């Protein structure tokens, strides 16, 4: 049988089995599904809102019943009043923005610095042996411990603040990438190599995307660390622009308890808001694309 005849017979035979194959595809396939907005709101937004409501109610109750000294625990309304006051003085947004800007720009700088460090630590054995443990150890060092040294070395202004953010955040970013790379299935690397993805092409097309979930976890932690470090730095170092940490400190000095509570709440809310606005959507998108998470979870 000549090769063209063979090809024709095989084509016919295979088209019979193609129908079987197409049937199997329908039976085995997984359909992507979305969720109606109403259900997302009910299942995801409602429970945390209820908890917030309960905490506020409890707080109000404690205040009304006079269970503690009103100087030490002012009621929710008094804290709200402080917020209103700040808003009317038109200082609320500048204060929040100063801190958010420092936090985000410091964090981005930490990503730029931490990523190559993580890449080198993960892929170059001697470097890993030398600085891997140090990098891990740095993560457990509270960044507030750096503040005095940073202030003495760099002066009590923005430079010291950014240095503290970086010291807190860079190790998280780098360690996240190292962990992400360690978890890359070796099969992906082999598959990449057989396709010719070696050297930098391998890093770009296989290693980085495969390590992305771990890297992203590191970024999330990196943001949390940079926000925390910033608050620690702002509490102690003083710079011309008033940030949330400095505001909190000034309220303490003024024995303004509603202001102190407001400061704490604002710091908490901004931290959560950034996480929800930037980190969570990226992570959800990434995991859903890879089928790690259901579309509506």
């Amino acid at each position, binding site marked *: 049988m000549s*090769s063209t005849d063979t090809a024709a017979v*095989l084509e016919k035979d295979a088209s019979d089995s*193609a129908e079987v194959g197409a049937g199997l595809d329908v039976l085995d396939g997984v359909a992507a599904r979305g969720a109606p907005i109403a259900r997302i709101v009910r299942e995801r937004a409602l429970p945390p809102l209820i908890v917030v409501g309960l905490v506020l109610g409890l707080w109000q109750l404690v205040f009304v019943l006079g269970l503690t000294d009103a100087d030490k625990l002012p009621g929710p309304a008094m804290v709200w009043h402080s917020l209103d006051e700040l808003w009317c003085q038109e200082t609320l947004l500048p204060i929040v923005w100063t801190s958010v800007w420092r936090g985000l720009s410091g964090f981005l700088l930490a990503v730029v610095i931490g990523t190559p460090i993580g890449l080198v630590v993960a892929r170059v054995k001697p470097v890993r042996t030398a600085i891997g443990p140090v990098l891990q150890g740095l993560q457990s060092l509270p960044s507030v411990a750096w503040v005095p040294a940073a202030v003495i070395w760099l002066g009590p202004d923005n430079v010291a603040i950014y240095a503290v953010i970086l010291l807190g955040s860079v190790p998280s970013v780098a360690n996240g990438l190292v962990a992400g790379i360690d978890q890359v299935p070796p099969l992906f690397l082999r598959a990449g190599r057989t396709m010719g993805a070696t050297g930098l092409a391998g890093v770009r097309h296989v290693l980085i995307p495969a390590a992305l979930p771990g890297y992203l976890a590191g970024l999330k932690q990196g943001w949390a660390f940079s926000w925390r470090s910033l608050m620690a730095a702002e509490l102690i170092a003083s710079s011309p622009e008033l940030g949330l940490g400095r505001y909190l400190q000034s309220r303490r000095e003024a024995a303004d308890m509603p202001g102190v509570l407001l400061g704490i709440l604002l710091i908490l809310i901004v931290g959560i808001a950034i996480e929800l606005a930037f980190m969570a959507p990226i992570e959800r998108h990434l995991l859903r694309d890879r089928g790690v998470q259901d579309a509506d979870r």
Partner: protein
Amino acid sequence: MTPVLTTPQAVTGRVAGGVPAVRISHVHKSFGRSGARTHVLDDITLDVAPGEFVTLLGASGCGKSTLLNLVAGLDKPSRGSIEVPGGRPALMFQEHALFPWLTAGKNIELALKLAGVPRPERRAEAERLLELVRLAGAYGKRVHELSGGMRQRVAMARALAQGSKVLLMDEPFAALDAITRDVLHDEITRIWAERQLSVLFVTHNVREAVRLAQRVVLLSSRPGRVAREWRIDLPQPRRIESSGVADLSIEITEELRGEIRRHVQH
């Protein structure tokens, strides 16, 4: 009954005449440091002719996957040489090894990109390859949305996207159910003939080896050596349950079991 047309060959492993698609010459492979060295492959000599479909058959420990890795260039032989004159061969694994961060189509396009296909041509070529494996609508599908059989078909398309005429397959259908495997046997046979590929297919499934191959090479285990080979002249398309395939499978299984029995310690 179809006569079983087999020609027991002298174990030379060489194909007469012409430049082979794959030439494996006196290859040895050992792992571990001296003292605790494991000799995995022992003097393997084997050619795959252009357009030939060869299955490598053996029990576990025969080093068939190791041999495939050597041919793929993922590892180097301890001694001997491997030549693939057509350039880097494509390799398919038991697991699909598709990248979950890319769609089916983009997985194929990445292989095209790495093979140097210019960007404007990639999309159309990826669609063509998906059509070839009968997944015309799957371009935008994520890997997790595909069934096991569909994944292996995309993996096949991605392997073909590398543009090599030599396709290495490492038990690519072992993790699939029997019905899906049957369908994919038909598909790979069709694509092999259509594209005139040279295939080196590793399996421990005797019937699968006979169903697909023009030549079945039996490796002995620990260390792996070419024990025997059969040329299979049954016409394609074959059915895995046909008597021709069954009869030859019985003969080869006997031989395989004999090889395995040699390892019983008396």
